C-alpha cells in the first residue's frame, strides 16, 4: 500500500484532489440551489411576516388623532370586500399621511435583506446558503413562534397593518391563496366580535374552525380550541355566523376552504 503511494507522481494526487474539491463545490452549489428553490414560497411568507411585525418610529408628530385613526380602521374593516382575484392581494395601502410615517432604519435593514435575497436567488451563489438557512429555520420553527408573533401583530401601533396570517406548509400556490383568503376574514368578523365586560381582561382565547362553501357561506363553524368559558365561545361563534357571507373563494382553493383549512383566533 505504502509503496503504491510513493510510486505515484505528485501531479496525480494534485489532479485527484482538485477533481474532488470541484465535485464537492458543485454538489454544494446544486444542493443550495435546490434548497433555495424549495423554500421560495415559504420565504416570501416569512419575509412578509417579519415586515409586518417590525416596529415603526415616527419622524414627525401624527396629524391625525387616535380617534380619527380608529374611525379609519373601523370604516376600512366594514367596507365591502373586493372580489376575488387569482393574485395574492397587495398589502392594505397605508392611509395617506404624507411623510409623517417613515420607517426606521431597522425596517430599512430588513427590507434590504429581503431585496438581497431576491437578487441572490437569480444569481444562485453558494455564499447565500447561510442566510437562506437562517430564513428557512424561521419558517420551520413557525409553530413555536406563532404566539409571540401573533401577539406582536395584535399590539400594532399607530399604523395600518400588512399581513396577519400564519400558515403551516402545503402546496405553495394553493397555500398562499388560502392564506390570502384567510387574511380577509378578520376584518369581516371583527365588527361582530363583542364580549361583555366581565369576560374582558381574563386572557381567554378560543379558536374556531370555519368551513366556507364555494358561495362564501358558512357551512359549519366549530370550536377547535375552547376558551373554557361557554359565553366566550358562543360570542365568538356568533360573531363568525353574523359575519357570513364571506367573499367567494377562488376555484382552486374552494376545496381547502370547504374542508375547514382556516382557523379564526379570538383574539389570537
Amino acid at each position, binding site marked *: 500500500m505504502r509503496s503504491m503511494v510513493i510510486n505515484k507522481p505528485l501531479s496525480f494526487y494534485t489532479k485527484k484532489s482538485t477533481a474532488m474539491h470541484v465535485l464537492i463545490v458543485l454538489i454544494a452549489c446544486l444542493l443550495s440551489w435546490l434548497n433555495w428553490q424549495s423554500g421560495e414560497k415559504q420565504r416570501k411568507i416569512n419575509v412578509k411576516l417579519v415586515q409586518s411585525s417590525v416596529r415603526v*418610529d415616527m*419622524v414627525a408628530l401624527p396629524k391625525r*388623532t387616535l380617534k380619527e385613526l380608529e374611525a379609519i380602521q373601523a370604516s376600512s374593516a366594514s367596507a365591502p370586500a373586493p372580489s376575488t382575484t387569482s393574485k395574492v392581494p397587495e398589502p392594505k395601502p397605508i392611509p395617506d399621511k404624507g411623510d409623517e410615517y417613515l420607517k426606521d432604519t431597522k425596517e430599512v435593514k430588513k427590507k434590504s435583506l429581503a431585496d438581497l435575497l431576491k437578487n441572490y436567488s437569480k444569481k444562485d451563489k453558494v455564499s447565500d446558503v447561510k442566510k437562506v438557512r437562517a430564513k428557512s429555520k424561521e419558517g420551520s420553527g413557525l409553530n413555536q413562534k406563532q404566539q409571540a408573533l401573533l401577539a406582536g401583530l395584535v399590539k400594532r*401601533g399607530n399604523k395600518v397593518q400588512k399581513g396577519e396570517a400564519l400558515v403551516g406548509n402545503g402546496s405553495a400556490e394553493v*397555500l398562499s391563496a388560502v392564506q390570502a383568503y384567510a387574511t380577509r376574514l378578520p376584518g369581516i368578523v371583527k365588527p361582530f366580535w*363583542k364580549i361583555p365586560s366581565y369576560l374582558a381582561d381574563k386572557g381567554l382565547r378560543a379558536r374556531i374552525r370555519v368551513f366556507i362553501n364555494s358561495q362564501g357561506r358558512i357551512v359549519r363553524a366549530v370550536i377547535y380550541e375552547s376558551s373554557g368559558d361557554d359565553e366566550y365561545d358562543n360570542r365568538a361563534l356568533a360573531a363568525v355566523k353574523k359575519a357570513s357571507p364571506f367573499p367567494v373563494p377562488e376555484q382552486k382553493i374552494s376545496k381547502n376552504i370547504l374542508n375547514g383549512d382556516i382557523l379564526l383566533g379570538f383574539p389570537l
Partner: protein
Amino acid sequence: MIKNLVILISLFILTLSIKAEEGLTIVAVGKADVEKDGLIIVTNDQPRGLSNREKTIIAEYEKLMKNDFSFYKQKFNVMDKNEYKPKAVRKDYSFLSGIGVRYFILNSFDKASENTLSVKSELYSVREKKLLETVSVTVTPSNVRKNGHEAGDALFQKIAGQTSIFRSKIVFVSDKGTTKSKGIKELYIMDFDGHGVRRLTNHRGNVISPAFSFDGRKVLYSLIKNSRSKSRNINLYILDVETGRSRVISSKKGINSGAFFMPDGENIALTLTHEGNAEIYSLNLASGATRRITKHYQPDVDPSINVTGSRMAFLSGRSGAGKPMIYIADPRAQEKDVKRISYVGKFNATPRFSPDGSEIAFASWLDNRFDIFRVDENGANLHRLTKDFGSNEDPTYSNDGQFIAFSSQRVLSRTRAVQNIYIMTRDGDILGSLTKNMGNCSTPRWSKY
C-alpha cells in the same frame, strides 16, 4: 478537511428534509370590543315627612352617583328612564336583562336626625341575579358629595375590581381676582368633577407648577412674587392641604421650580439653577440635602416620576438643535439609564407619567398651537389626542390612568382668551370642562390616590 465538508453537505441535506408540520391557516381576529354595561341608579321610595332640604340631599346623592358613573362612558351606559325605576325596585331581573341592564344600584334613605339621612346603596348584578355589595353611609348637606363619591367608589370597585376616580381631587392655578394693575395666580383644589372648588393660597403673586404628593396630603408649588423688591427669586413652597399652611422649602439662588414628589413622600425631584444651568435634583424634605440627578451642559427640566420611583421622565435640550425632547432616566442615581423617548416635535413640554408608568402624556407644538400627545414609555405608539380644540397644555393622568385632565385655551378676540380645565379619556374622547367662571385656569394636577 474532507470530513468537514462531508459534515457540511450532510447539514445541507438535513435542512432540505426539514418540513414544517402540516397545519391549518390561523388568522387572528384580534381583541373583542367590550360591550358597555347597562347601569341604572334608582332611589327607593322615600320615607315620609322629609323636609325640602332633606329631599334635596336625596336628589343630590342620586344625581352625583349617576354623574360619577357617567364619566366611565366606555364602560357603562347609565340608563336614566323613569319607567325602569319600579322594575329595579321590584328586582325584575328578566325585564332588566332584556333591556340590556347588567347592574343596578338601589339607594334607600332613612331619616337619622334633622338634616341627616342614612343611606344604604345596594349593587345588584342582573346576570347573576343577586346582591353584590351594600354600602351604608350617613349624609348631611355638607358631606353628601364626599360620602356620595366614596359610596360610588366602593360600588365601582366591586364591579371593576379597581379603584375609580370618584374620590380623587385636582389642584390647579387660576387668575381669578386679577386686576388691571396686578396679575395674580393662586392655587385652587376641586373634586374630580369640578365641584367643591377651594382656594389654597393667598400670596397675591403668581403660583406656578404645582404637584400633588402621592397620598394627596401635600402640594408643592413655586411662587413668582409680585413685590417690587429686587429679590424676585422663584422659591419652592410646600402646602398642607388639610390645614392650608405653607412654607418655603427651597430658596436657592435662581429658579426652584418644576417640583415633583417621589413616591416615598420624603424626597422630591425639582429643577434648580443655582449652579448656572438648569438641572434636576432630588431634595430631601426633612434634611434639605440635595442630590444631583441630571448632569449635562444643556438644560434639563420638568421631572415626572412613576409610581414605583424607578423612572423619571424629563425634558432636555441635550439633543442639540434647540428642541426640547423627552427623556427618561433612573432618578435613583446620576445620569443613570438615560434614554431618549421623543424624536419629533418642534417643542415638547410637560411629560407626565401615567400612574402605572406605562405611558407618557405630553404637550407638543403643532400647527401653531399646543396639543396633547401620548407615547408608550419605550417610545412606541405615539398618538395624538387633541385636535381643533383650542390650544391644549399640561396633561395630567387620573389616579386610575383612564382619564387625562388638561388646560385648554380658546381665543375669544384679539385681546381676550379664556383658559379652562378639561377632562378626556386616555384615548382622547373629550368629556367636557371642569372649571366655570374661574377666570383662566391652568396647570391641573390630578391626585394619585
